[in-house]
């Protein structure tokens, strides 16, 4: 089985780690792999995963639109905006 390395997952995380950070990341990955070997020894068959500590059902609300923050307010924080939209570099030639 291929050994996990930071470099394998950097494109997925949209990151490019520098060499020092990559070495730290590889250390923590190696450590987690060791810890998971211990975890595999714990029998968890049939145990429901705990996603949230609260025993909650899905929270529903009336199907009515609301506006917490206006478009103009949101665009105030945009690094670049054009004509009321977020602007990004050209994506299609």
């Amino acid at each position, binding site marked *: 089985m291929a050994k996990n390395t930071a470099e394998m*997952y950097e494109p997925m*995380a949209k990151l490019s780690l520098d060499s020092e950070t990559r070495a730290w*990341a590889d250390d923590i990955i190696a450590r987690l792999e060791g*810890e998971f070997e211990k975890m595999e020894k714990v029998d968890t068959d049939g*145990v429901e*995963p705990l996603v949230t500590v609260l025993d909650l059902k899905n929270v529903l609300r009336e199907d009515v639109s609301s506006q917490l923050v206006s478009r103009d*307010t949101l665009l105030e*924080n945009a690094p670049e905006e054009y004509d009321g939209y977020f602007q990004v570099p050209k994506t299609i030639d």
Partner: protein
Amino acid sequence: MKFMMQSCLMVKDTVCDGGSKILEGFKSPLSATAYEKCVAAGMEFLGLVTPFEFGIDSLFCDCPDKDGTIDAILEGKCDFVLCNDVYGKMSRMAAVNGLVYLAGAYGTVSRFGIMQTVSSMDRVGVLCKKAEDGIKVLETISGKDEKDGSMLDTEKYDYSAKCDKVKAVKADEVEMKYFDLLPAVFYTLASAELCNNTNRYDGVKFGYRAPDVTDLNDLYLRSRTEGLGKDVQIASMVGCMVLAKENYEKWYFKAMQLRRMIRDYYWALLTDADVLVLDAKCDCGDKFRQLALYALAPLCGFASAAATLDGKPVELVCKPGKENIMFSMITEG
């Protein structure tokens, strides 16, 4: 009372950067419910303090025993600071500096208006000098908020009722089952959630955007790499790894199953006893292993209180509903 907040909690029309370059200049369009409740109760807001990025702690760099948040209380700048203590850094620093850090059980204080970091474990807490002040603040900010979908139904909490008989147990007096596994379970789940929550910092809609980008992928990659700190980068990358198709079942799913077993075990332990007493240390040598001392409360959704007890820095943990019993141990009279 006068208060400050770490800048990972937001105040409308104020620059809140969460201690991260990626949110350089970000002006919040809304205010945290905890902030609104304090102001409505007549408490005076003095300003923001900068936390370690998004309230996490560095596992890779040496961190001092105190920071600007602790200094704000030690130097008497304010009476309390609202924080989101994701990796237990504030709790540890509070206890070793003779201060108090109180955090209610998960779902008792609204998370609306805090920068989501580890959504299933984020808890707004109170750093202060005296436990009595912290209890008053916690009573003020807790209670159901329609803006947070993961809350208990209780509208108001009373944490002030003193309790004379407290059954407290120390970690070396009980079987601390799964204790060795806590750091890995905590770090796996926290990284997965942190990875998802920090995906929004992409240089498109707000915050830092790298200059002179060539295309959209370059914009994402360079903005995030230049804007996020090393610990957040590593946690995001680890999060991607444990959530990847080939690892999901054996790592992430397994960690969630273990989380239930850990919660069920300690729920039973803290039904029999009232409070579990753990050491609070800033330097255990191994920072990853150190997470075990803190991970129990966020993993299980328990309430916690870091303070000095019998001259030693400790972290106390209790089940929801037993907060007043736990707080009785650190209040005077």
